[in-house]
């Protein structure tokens, strides 16, 4: 499926089949989750990153079913197409944003998602303790979501942020790399 076709599909599904909630509600709810985690782990931001990723993973495992049910897509023929579908359909229908797919490696197994806007990060200031700026990946939930969702469609990926405007970087960029395609599980033998 071409990029334009994917974009049209994302637009169409977002307009017709998605229940919407106020964006600020999402932003504030997510903000309070992260704030609470920071409190619970007493400023251990690496652990907070890990927890956000785990929460995202569990969301992703289920969100993929919702995605498939709403879009009824064809199976992607290669990882490039998968990337386009994630950016133009997945992010579009669930967050109403379309990150840019960029920086492919030559073996077509790694790409970046560059977020021009990120509803999770609106109104956010990272704690001014000298560490959060270097350690906390505020939107790390999204990495987990991608990891979980793609695992369900037989792709093991690694996803992590490499820059975030909240940290003072110029862009918000997530790096996604394909580890392997997962083989179908075989049924256990009787004995």
């Amino acid at each position, binding site marked *: 499926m071409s990029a334009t076709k994917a974009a049209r599909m994302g637009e169409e599904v977002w307009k017709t089949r998605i229940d919407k909630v106020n964006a600020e509600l999402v932003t504030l709810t997510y903000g309070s989750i992260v704030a609470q985690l920071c409190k619970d782990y007493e400023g251990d931001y690496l652990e907070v990153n890990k927890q956000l990723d*785990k*929460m995202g993973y*569990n*969301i992703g*495992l*289920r969100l*993929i*079913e*919702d995605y*498939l*049910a*709403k879009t*009824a*897509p*064809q*199976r992607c023929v290669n990882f490039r197409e998968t990337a386009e579908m994630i950016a133009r359909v997945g992010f579009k229908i669930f967050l109403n944003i379309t990150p840019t797919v960029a920086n492919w490696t030559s073996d077509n197994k790694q790409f970046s998602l560059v977020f021009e806007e990120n509803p999770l990060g609106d109104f956010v200031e990272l704690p001014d303790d000298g560490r959060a700026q270097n350690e906390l990946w505020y939107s790390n939930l999204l990495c987990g979501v991608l990891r979980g969702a793609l695992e*369900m*469609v*037989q792709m093991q990926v690694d996803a992590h942020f490499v820059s975030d405007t909240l940290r003072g970087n110029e862009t918000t960029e997530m790096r996604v790399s394909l580890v392997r395609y997962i083989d*179908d*599980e*075989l*049924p*256990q033998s009787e004995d």
Partner: protein
Amino acid sequence: MTIYSFYIFDRHCECIYIKQWHERERAGAAIRPTTSASTTSPIPDKRVSAGGKQITETDISMRNGRLSVQDDAKLIFGVVFSLRNMVRKLSTPDDNFISYRTNNYKLHYYETPTNLKFVMITDVKTNNLRVVLHQIYVNLYVEYVIARNLYVLMLNNYIAVEHSGGEGVACELFELGLESFVVRTLKLIELTT
């Protein structure tokens, strides 16, 4: 048309949902025992209500010497799994079979990209039910099982994942939804043919 049974298998090859409406009439007359009354408990443990019709005396006697519901499910999984893999080898990897029929029944198949397998077994006269199975996935499974478990997950602090042993699939909303959906579909199909 008549629907005999319905199964869902997850990506771990586990049967996570079984429902039987009518006892399958696949055993031919020759195999059917002549004595009508039986002493053994005819329908062992299964998560099943005898949907529309009561199970009749003859159905029960047919049950003798037959496999348990769980063994049935295993066999069905085996058939579907092998058939699907063979079909893919013969054609392209994204190809899949839609249904097959025998002299006595027809098996309809729908698989999601997440390797969930939906199987429905009906009489031979039934037209293709792929669309129906897709609708069960979209409108019932995703709506009631996936969404509901998301809620349970939050309560459990994101520990529980997926439905081991089919736990959480046979929830009330899903059961009721499935029942009424099937009844509606049957009526619709009868009206249009």
